[in-house]
């Protein structure tokens, strides 16, 4: 992540919202926190089974600090619209980073009564190096 951000001007704006940038840049190991947030975004999209699909942006999945520092997921744009169509009831994420590796897991809970919901629960993880 450190190399990616250093070598590619503008990539931070592609990957992270302003709130995420403020959070990470306020930390001593900013790149480690960025890697954790990226892993969390990837885990959420894997739990949805979409990856980065048509018209979706990395900033559509925003990871923000919730109560007690626990990360929370805010969805925007095309990803939010997709999740609403499929009947997303809740999405939870956990992030850990240490010793050059960031790991995240996401749990998506679907409303089985939603008209076009095909899945009850899905679970996916992702990791990223920094």
């Amino acid at each position, binding site marked *: 992540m450190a190399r990616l951000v250093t*070598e590619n001007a503008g990539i931070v704006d592609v990957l992270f919202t302003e709130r995420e940038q403020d959070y990470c840049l306020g930390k001593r190991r900013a790149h480690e926190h960025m890697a954790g947030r*990226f892993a969390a975004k*990837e885990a959420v999209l894997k739990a949805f*089974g979409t990856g*980065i*699909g*048509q018209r*979706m942006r990395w900033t559509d999945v925003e990871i923000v600090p919730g109560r007690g520092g626990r990360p929370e997921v805010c969805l925007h744009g*095309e990803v939010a619209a997709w999740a609403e169509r499929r009947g997303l009831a809740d999405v939870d994420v956990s992030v850990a980073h240490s010793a050059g590796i960031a790991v995240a897991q996401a749990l998506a809970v679907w409303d089985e009564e939603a008209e076009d919901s*095909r899945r009850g629960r899905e679970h996916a993880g992702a990791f990223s190096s920094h």
Partner: protein
Amino acid sequence: MAESQTISAVQEAVVGALGVSEDEAAPDATLMDDLGAESIDLLDILFRIERSTGVKIQASDLSEYIQGGIPDDEFSDENEIISEKGLEQLKKVMPQIDADEQRGNLHAENVIKLFTVQNLADMVEQRGGSAGS
């Protein structure tokens, strides 16, 4: 930009981002399965291509290019197996795919794993052409 320059620029980006050799970054090598690229590596590759060619491609553009604007529920069936319409589209942008072999077997999430260095060069060529027109 000539096609030979485009494929060279894409190969150079792949080599730089993934740390593979020039031989490994052959036109028919798949970015994810053969060369081990992950989504964050694809971003690195796309930014490198933008720097060298001026052609800007975002990660979500890859899906859009592959699907040709066909909505998800038409590109694949309820089990997320690529539909006949989807296979027709794939023949245009990923001509190396054997539609007969993949018919009824190709899961939507596996399509990107078949995307090659040459496929990316073709996309850059197309985007570069449309940007300049």
